[in-house]
């Protein structure tokens, strides 16, 4: 053995010594037998890596991390987990913002990134079968030469997985006209917590039975693991027009949005950015946004040539009626791409300004947008925080970003307090807790603001119908006080594990 090897072994032992004993050993050997030794990991590095996703939340650490490559392996993991009374956390790319993929306690983490094949594309049925680890944008790239795309386009689409999109019912700018992920999932094969495989939904329009597929979408990994997914594919539109409207106030932009919807137009996308973020984006990518507008509205219509022209003209007109100071139409694909690049790199632009940000996600009725935004600014002021707003205005989905520097003492408390008030302001206006990021661990404590005990009790029944032992992604979504959240044994954190 070389010196280096020896040094490494020593270091490895040091990491391993802290780990708990026998049940883990048995669990590990069973998992390794069922999968392959190198696809079941239990070292300190891996356990700490899988303790996080893109959110700020931390819970426990990964028990073993498993990387299955097919449905049978996922089944085996579920059965072994059941036999050992362990929880199981599915994980896609780990870009979730509500802590959905973080382990609480030391559950088995099942990373689905190695199940990433596009299995088939059928243009008659407008469906593609994919494995859950396929990256959203990879699917669309694959479909482009055939004249199709996968409609949900979250800002993280270059990296997030279809499985994660399904589990979080992801949205994106173009979900206004085409609907969020749920409208684009036709069927899926799932492995339930007891290891049984079930096919939910179907390629036919009205499958028999309850809509278990619809229920599984957005369930944040708490009902089982999706192992094959039939997604609807959408025909590319021959004509697209993108308008950029500038306003003197955020309210004017928000009111224009309600005006457009009220006029019976359903654009492909309606996105608003406030002054601060517009300037930041402009500094970052130079997309051609006006630096002096209080807010800009990016409106896109698509379809056939004439209709697109008609809708674009009406949007321009409605904008002017609501005080638009400038209305510009992108002249060509380049200009269009540049405007979208600006919108889609908004988070990047922010990262250039402040070291940390907290991104909120609530939905309010579109007619309440202006009113709630005013409150958001007031709340941020009150806590002496900088806030920027960039949001899916068309469906009332707010994304206030609170900027801060975590090195500043006490700032996190202020950020959380302001966040709480923003959520409450949204609920007071008749809104809901989340439009696309989900509940995860982030918003559990707010669930009882939106739902009564009986309402939550029924959500818990739904969950247990799939997973009576509450072992799929334990401790998520349903708040404490309801049976599935209260199974403490699943939440114990082992001692002595780093991360």
């Amino acid at each position, binding site marked *: 053995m*070389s010196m*280096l090897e020896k040094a490494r072994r020593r270091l490895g032992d040091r990491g391993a010594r802290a780990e708990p004993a026998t049940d883990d050993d048995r669990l590990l050997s069973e998992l390794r037998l069922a999968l392959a030794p190198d696809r079941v990991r239990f070292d300190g*590095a891996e356990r700490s890596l899988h303790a996080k996703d893109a959110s700020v939340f931390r819970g426990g650490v990964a028990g073993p991390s498993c990387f299955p490559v097919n449905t049978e392996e996922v089944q085996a993991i579920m059965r072994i987990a059941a036999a050992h009374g362990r929880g199981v956390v599915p994980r896609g790319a780990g870009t979730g913002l509500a802590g959905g993929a973080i382990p609480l306690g030391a559950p088995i983490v099942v*990373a689905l990134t190695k199940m990433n094949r596009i299995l088939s594309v059928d243009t008659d049925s407008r469906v593609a079968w994919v494995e859950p680890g396929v990256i959203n944008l990879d699917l669309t790239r694959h479909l482009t030469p055939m004249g199709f795309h996968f409609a949900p386009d979250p800002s993280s689409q270059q990296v997030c997985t279809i499985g994660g999109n399904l589990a979080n019912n992801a949205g994106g700018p173009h979900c206004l006209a085409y609907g969020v992920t749920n409208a684009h999932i036709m069927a899926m094969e799932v492995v339930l917590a007891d290891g049984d495989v079930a096919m939910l939904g179907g390629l036919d329009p009205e499958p028999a039975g309850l809509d278990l597929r619809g229920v599984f979408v957005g369930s944040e990994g708490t009902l089982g693991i999706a192992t094959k997914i039939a997604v609807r594919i959408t025909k590319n539109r021959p004509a697209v027009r993108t308008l950029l409207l500038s306003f003197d106030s955020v309210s004017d932009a928000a009111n224009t949005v309600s005006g457009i919807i009220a006029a019976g137009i359903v654009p492909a996308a309606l996105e608003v950015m406030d002054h601060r973020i517009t300037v930041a984006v402009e500094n970052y990518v130079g997309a051609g946004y006006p630096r002096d507008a209080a807010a800009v509205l990016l409106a896109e219509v698509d379809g056939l040539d004439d209709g697109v022209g008609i809708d674009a003209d009406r949007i321009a007109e409605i904008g002017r009626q609501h005080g638009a100071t400038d209305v510009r139409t992108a002249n060509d694909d380049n200009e269009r791409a540049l405007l979208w690049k600006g919108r889609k790199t908004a988070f990047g632009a922010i990262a250039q300004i402040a070291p940390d940000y907290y991104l909120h996600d609530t939905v309010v009725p579109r007619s309440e947008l202006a009113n709630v935004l005013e409150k958001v600014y007031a709340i941020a002021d009150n806590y002496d925080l900088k806030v920027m707003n960039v949001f899916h205005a068309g469906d009332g989905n707010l994304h206030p970003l609170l900027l801060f520097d975590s090195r500043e003492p006490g700032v996190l408390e202020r950020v959380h307090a302001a966040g709480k008030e923003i959520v409450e302001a949204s609920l007071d206006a008749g809104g809901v807790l989340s439009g696309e990021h989900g509940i995860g661990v982030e918003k559990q404590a707010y669930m009882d603001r939106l739902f009564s005990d009986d309402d939550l009790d029924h959500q818990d029944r739904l969950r247990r119908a799939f997973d009576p032992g509450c072992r799929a992604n334990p401790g998520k979504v349903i708040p404490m006080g309801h049976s599935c959240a209260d199974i403490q044994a699943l939440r114990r954190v082992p001692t002595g594990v780093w*991360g």
Partner: protein
Amino acid sequence: MDLNLNGDELNTCVQCGLCLAHCPTYRVSGDESMSPRGRIHLMREVQLNNAPVTHEVLRSFETCVQCRGCEPACPSAVPYGHLMETTRETLADAGLMTPWWQRLAMRPLAHTKLLGAGSVMVALAQRGRLVPKRLGLSVDVPFTQEPLRASGTDVIMFTGCVMDAWQRDVHQAGQRVLEAAGFGVTPSGDLAPCCGALHAHAGLADDTRTYATNMMRTLSRGAIADASIIVDSAGCSAQMKDYGHLLGTEAARRFSSRVFDISEFLALHLDRLPEGSQLAGTVAIQDPCHLRHVQRVHEATRTVLGRYIPNLVELDDDGLCCGAGGAYSVMEAQLSGQIRDRKVAVISAKDPDLVASANPGCSMHLGAVGVPTIHPMELVDRALHG
């Protein structure tokens, strides 16, 4: 363990994961531990939380190709390349990384005349089981070639080490193109034997500093003291542009500002390039990582080639690395091969006649599995001189 990383740089990562899809090792493995976000997380755990430097932690660092594809993808502008270089340097100094034979194999690169001997040493070492078998090199080393001759002092043509011995044709093409654009050329030859890129990647930054200091001295004297330094290997130009950061001196920054990739330089002097003829055939552009992600001047390749090649095609993978990565293809042959397989599939989808790549490492790596690669300058030279 203190990895000597700048705390502020380390903290800029917000763990958003947007870089994952642009990382070749994550792409082929799906492992968080082989992703930029994962590697940064482990750096943090080691430096800030005193986590042990285990075998797995080292593997995470060692498997990084240092292609820096993660950098342009990162909204928070995390200086990943520097973090990884410093990490490797610290771990190498602590004796935890870079086995001795790997260092040995790299020594001779500094002496052009010894390069052949260097290869022999590697081969000997291989036979002596000091180096794994997979250290197979795919290119025959040509021994006798026409030397480059100076034609003026407008620009310096950096001829480097690996490139000079193995791909002298490319230098000659590049020199002819520069001359066609009216620049008198001085080849650097023995004045600047190595840029030190391979050493820097292996965490041997001190060696790189030595090469840098020497080169800055020899290329900043006499008639060529202020001449632009033209480089036709993207890995070398990237390294030489980084001397400013590496040495942290004003002189080094000034030196770095004289360095241009050859396409970058020609794109700035497009008006001086002769008409030439139009080349038939489809050419796919394979951007070397050090051109695209590090120097971010890959558009220049298109600007220059576009003048002579009507059928230029783009690959559909956002410039994902091909897996060559200097010594990486030897040290991590399996991963490197998987990354290359992916690249080959992306290339095949476009079915090009030729693949233009401005880095010898990439060309050799892809050429080894039959991809017909060519340096952009050879294409331009063909268009200009038939």
